[in-house]
């Protein structure tokens, strides 16, 4: 809504104070774009948590949604950050060992191969999409400068071409806004989507890793039990330990399977939604641009 307001104000003031307005609007527009992005990402995250059978019941989540005063969440202190760092190190080192183990379960084996490749390709696509979006934005910025230069030419020229320049300058200003929106929308619908699924596929990989870890633990427990039985020492302890590992493994396998199936469903739905919206927005902007250009040409050709 605020865009419309600005547009109307601009039309009323005509050519008189363009530069200050343009600067203000540019800044406002960029801020709004980033804001839109952030809101969208938060929304997706919250919806995910709310949809999750277990996480939705988490107390922290409830507090987050309901507490109507400032939450004052403290950030991670140095110690916690360091812990995270080491956890990641261990995970990657472990990951190498664990991924060597072939899975008996076809489902998980397939998922593992799939996720590995998918994750890498999503990463690549995300990076390329980012670059593409940024180039779009650079081009939009150039339109802005061209519009300003044309305006200067229009106000200084002594021949009758000054009206012409002013009209084209106006066109570039307007078309620049559309180009900037194209860039922002591509960023939102494509780049962010890919970034999100980059993280999601990483999370899925982590899940598989945890399951593999648990499988290794289970197998180790089995070996320990066999040894205990052979030595006939601490057999009960070994048995309980093995049972626990077994339970843990089966539980994690079950929930992992469900999560992974959900992952696929969600992924397909999200891509569909975003790709459809992307195409619709691209169409809307292209049509808007086309009309701007055609209107401008009609005026210019009419004048000459």
């Amino acid at each position, binding site marked *: 809504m605020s865009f419309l307001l600005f547009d109307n104000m601009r039309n009323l003031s005509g050519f008189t104070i363009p530069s200050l307005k343009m600067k203000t609007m540019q800044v406002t527009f960029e801020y709004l774009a980033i804001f839109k992005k952030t809101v969208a990402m938060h929304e997706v995250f919250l919806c995910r948590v709310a949809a999750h059978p277990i996480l939705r019941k988490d107390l922290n989540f409830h507090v987050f949604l309901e507490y109507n005063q400032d939450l004052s969440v403290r950030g991670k202190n140095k110690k916690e950050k360091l812990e995270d760092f080491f956890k990641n190190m261990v995970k990657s080192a472990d990951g190498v060992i664990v991924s060597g183990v072939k899975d008996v379960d076809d489902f998980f084996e397939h998922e593992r191969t799939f996720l590995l490749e998918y994750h890498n390709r999503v990463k690549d696509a995300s990076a390329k999409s980012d670059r593409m979006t940024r180039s779009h934005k650079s081009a939009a910025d*150039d339109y802005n400068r061209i519009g300003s230069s044309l305006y200067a030419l229009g106000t*200084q020229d002594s021949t009758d071409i000054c009206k012409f320049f002013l009209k084209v300058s106006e066109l570039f200003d307007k078309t620049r806004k559309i180009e900037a929106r194209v860039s922002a929308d591509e960023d939102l619908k494509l780049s962010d989507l890919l970034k999100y699924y980059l993280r999601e596929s990483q999370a899925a990989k982590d899940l598989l890793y945890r399951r593999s870890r648990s499988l290794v633990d289970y197998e180790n427990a089995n070996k320990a039990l066999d040894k205990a039985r052979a030595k006939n020492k601490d057999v009960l302890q070994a048995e309980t330990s093995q049972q626990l590992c077994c339970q843990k493994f089966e539980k994690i396998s079950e929930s992992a399977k469900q999560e992974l199936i959900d992952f696929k469903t969600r992924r397909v739905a999200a891509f569909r939604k975003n790709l459809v919206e992307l195409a619709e927005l691209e169409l809307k902007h292209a049509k808007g641009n086309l009309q701007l250009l055609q209107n401008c040409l009609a005026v210019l050709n009419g004048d000459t």
Partner: protein
Amino acid sequence: MAAEREPPPLGDGKPTDFEELEDGEDLFTSTVSTLESSPSSPDPASFLAEDISTNSNGPKPAEVALDDDREDLFAEATEEVSLDSPEREPILSSEPSPAVTPVTPTTLIAPRIESKSMSAPVIFDRSRDEIEEEANGDVFDIEIGVSDPEKVGDGMNAYMAYRVTTKTSLSMFNKSEFSVKRRFSDFLGLHSKLASKYLHVGYIVPPAPEKSIVGMTKVKVGKEDSSSTEFVEKRRAALERYLQRTVKHPTLLQDPDLRQFLESSELPRAVNTQALSGAGILRMVNKAADAVNKMTIKMNESDAWFEEKQQQFENLDQQLRKLHASVEALVCHRKELSANTAAFAKSAAMLGNSEDHTALSRALSQLAEVEEKIDQLHQEQAFADFYMFSELLSDYIRLIAAVKGVFDHRVKCWQKWEDAQITLLKKRETEAKMMVANKPDKIQQAKNEIREEIEEWEAKVQQGERDFEQISKTIRKEVGRFEKERVKDFKTVIIKYLESLVQTQQQLIKYWEAFLPEAKAIA
């Protein structure tokens, strides 16, 4: 004011009579001998004085770059200078060259007939105006195309030959459609001749495209990559625009050198366009002298129009440069966008391949295809950005440099007039002193001498005044014509450019409309 006399375009564009014609030749050869005798440091001042009244290769605006099709330079240096004179003779001698006759508004230009006579210019003057009115009414029926660049020769002596095709209904040409092969230095040679004839009398001669060592070396070496094909295409387009602008100028169109360039199958090699030839060095020296002079000449401008116009052109120059920089940035970013879109398309295709949901996988492949087509679109748009918008601006930046040069010539002309007046005054003072002095035996001879000199300088003062008024008048007309052309040019090209943007958007709509159902089909 002196009787109006337009410079007859009969081979030399000097606003003078026959006496100076011979003068020109002599001065030219004396320049040659001076160069040959003292190649190290010719006195700038004397060269400058000669330059003003000579038909030599005058300083050209913004054209000192090293040569692109160079041969063994120094060995030929003296040779080239002497080659100059015979080359110039056909033009200076006036006999064979077809004259232009008075014209009625209906037919444009009739060839040959009348020889040069003093009365012709007066009649001619009127007809020139008529021709220009025709030009404004857009009846100039001549179309020039530059095409088919082809590499001739091998190694460092190789060069590109371009086909120059002319289509015209003007009767001054032998045929209505004809084409010739020309190389880049031929174009430079043409410009050099036109500039030396017309610039110093106030005509805005369109500048030739710039030399480029890097570009040409790549072509010579035989690199068949996209950057050298782009370079050749850029040059071809620039040469075409250069010729089109030149023929649009009513005075230049009648020049026999231009006609020879367009028509004759064999053209004498323009060797004096090489930077390190004798003529090239002369050019550089003159340019340096000019720069020094510009700083020292203070002209009493009596005509506010000229000051105003110069200021306007200065502003326009600055604005165009700024705009040009922004457009160049756009071209660069658009090319980047095209490359990044292509990269994304490939990446999306890979993603589609590894996606195990069939419908989504297909949609991603479609997305990849769309983005690939869009990348092509961006590339084409970048070409349009460059060839239409950016090149238009760079052409005009160089044209304005030519305009500024013409204004500078006027100042030099004024200076010459001013100098003549000062010399005349000195001579008169000397005479007066002689009258008072007391040496009867020497006095009569000296008196006669000084009388003669005074008469000579009186004539020069008169000529200087005439020249100055002439150049001022010509510049006013030229600037008027230039501004009209500029407005037309900008409007035409920018509208064409906007139409290219329209096309791009229309294509985008088509592509996304085709993709949308595919995205919706994901189930």
